[in-house]
């Protein structure tokens, strides 16, 4: 490692020891070879690699070798570097299989579009010496929305009347953020509840990870609308309610009360929590197995949610 970069590492190295001074990479094509202690030099800056990012779901860790946790040595700040990794793969949504692709170009384009917009993670796409588009991302100063909600230990009724209206208001602002993408011909592509963060300072919501794309279809925003519906159901129910966990006979629950794609997940939440207003429940039922009418655009969804929020504020 050159002396100049070694000096930077000494200045900003983390409180743990760097086992050795690794290699300085300007070409990130072989991202599997880039690991702890290496430095990625990019756009005049140096990024000390601390490790690979991983996806944590259901207590399992799935390493993402193309996503590096780094420290920017010129300023000492934490950064995430997403290295270019093009792949196409099948995604399963209930019984459906959808071919999607991971695109660095798409994410870099959206980062440019949303620069300075706190409703989205911030960063920029920079080309390495081999022309790979590396996304240099700032850490989102917040926590996953779903984890925040799971940590609320009040009853559902208390949650619904005391906390939920503000969550719904902020969620609707997050929906408007997605509409902003759609207006510019973009989609988020991977709307999930663990891709929505709550800002520590403002409490506002921030979307992360928008590198998934799909082939053009007649309803270009259908997948995003589907994801928004899942989150709406989660925040309204204060979690997921599986049909096997409730007394279906006593509550009169049938398959028609469950989600179109997840036939075990109850979306007719009014049957579980009768104080959920009819108009709000009607929105949820657009995502149910019995629905014949689907939302195609965010404004359609918001037009139905806005009176619900107004009514909740009055109660």
């Amino acid at each position, binding site marked *: 490692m050159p002396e100049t970069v070694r000096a930077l590492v000494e200045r900003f190295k983390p409180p743990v020891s760097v086992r050795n001074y690794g290699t300085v990479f300007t070409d990130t094509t072989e991202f599997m070879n880039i690991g702890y202690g290496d430095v990625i030099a990019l756009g005049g800056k140096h990024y000390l690699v601390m490790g690979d990012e991983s996806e944590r779901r259901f207590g399992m860790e799935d390493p993402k070798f193309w996503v590096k946790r780094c420290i920017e040595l010129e300023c000492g700040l934490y950064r995430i570097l997403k290295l270019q990794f093009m792949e196409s793969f099948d995604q399963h949504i209930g019984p459906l299989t959808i071919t999607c692709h991971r695109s660095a170009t798409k994410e870099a384009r959206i980062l440019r579009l949303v620069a300075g917009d706190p409703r989205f993670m911030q960063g920029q796409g920079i080309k390495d010496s081999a022309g790979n588009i590396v996304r240099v991302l700032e850490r989102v100063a917040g926590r996953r929305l779903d984890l925040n909600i799971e940590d609320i230990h009040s009853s559902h009724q208390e949650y619904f009347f005391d906390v939920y209206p503000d969550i719904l208001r902020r969620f609707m602002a997050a929906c408007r953020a997605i509409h902003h993408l759609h207006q510019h011909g973009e989609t988020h592509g991977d709307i999930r509840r663990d891709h929505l963060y709550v800002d520590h300072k403002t409490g506002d919501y921030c979307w992360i990870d928008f590198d998934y794309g*799909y*082939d053009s279809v*007649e309803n270009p925003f*259908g997948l995003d609308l589907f994801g928004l519906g899942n989150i709406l159901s989660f925040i309204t129910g204060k979690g997921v309610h599986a049909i096997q966990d409730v007394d279906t006979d006593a509550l009169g629950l049938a398959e028609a009360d469950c989600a179109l794609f997840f036939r075990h997940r109850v979306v007719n939440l009014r049957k579980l929590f009768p104080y959920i207003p009819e108009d709000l429940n009607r929105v949820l039922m657009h995502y149910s197995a019995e629905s*014949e009418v689907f939302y195609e655009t965010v404004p359609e969804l918001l037009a139905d949610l806005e009176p619900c929020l107004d009514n909740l504020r009055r109660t």
Partner: protein
Amino acid sequence: MDFKNILISVDSSDNAMRAVDYAGTILANSQGVRVTLLYIERAPNRDRYEDEAAWLNQCRLDHERVFDFLKSARGRLVAAGIPDSAVFERTVLCSAEPSIAQTILDVQQEGGFGTLVVGRRGLTKGEEFLFGSVSNKLVHNAKNCAVWVVQ
């Protein structure tokens, strides 16, 4: 609208060819019909391709497939008994907005087509939610014309 002025909207699928065959059978002995084969072209998603060359290659392959399809569809209509001089072809470029269905309806209105023919993929409810259905949108939104949906 002239109901003998017929617009068959096609992609290069088997469903579209079924619609062509159906129209050919029904219209075989009709006098004074004009049949236009309409292909709405949407460029492949650039994000899927590593570089410009790969994307352009896919565009070329798509063009060739559509060219072959239109040629074959015309041949089937003529073989069914529709005069070659009464068969027309049209390709229209479409971006994400407006949708393919809306583009078809714009062409239908602008060309005074009184009959619109389209194949149907037979989507499940879930597929229709996520991907949308061109034929469904046509049935719901078409004005001043008959819509033949061929399964």
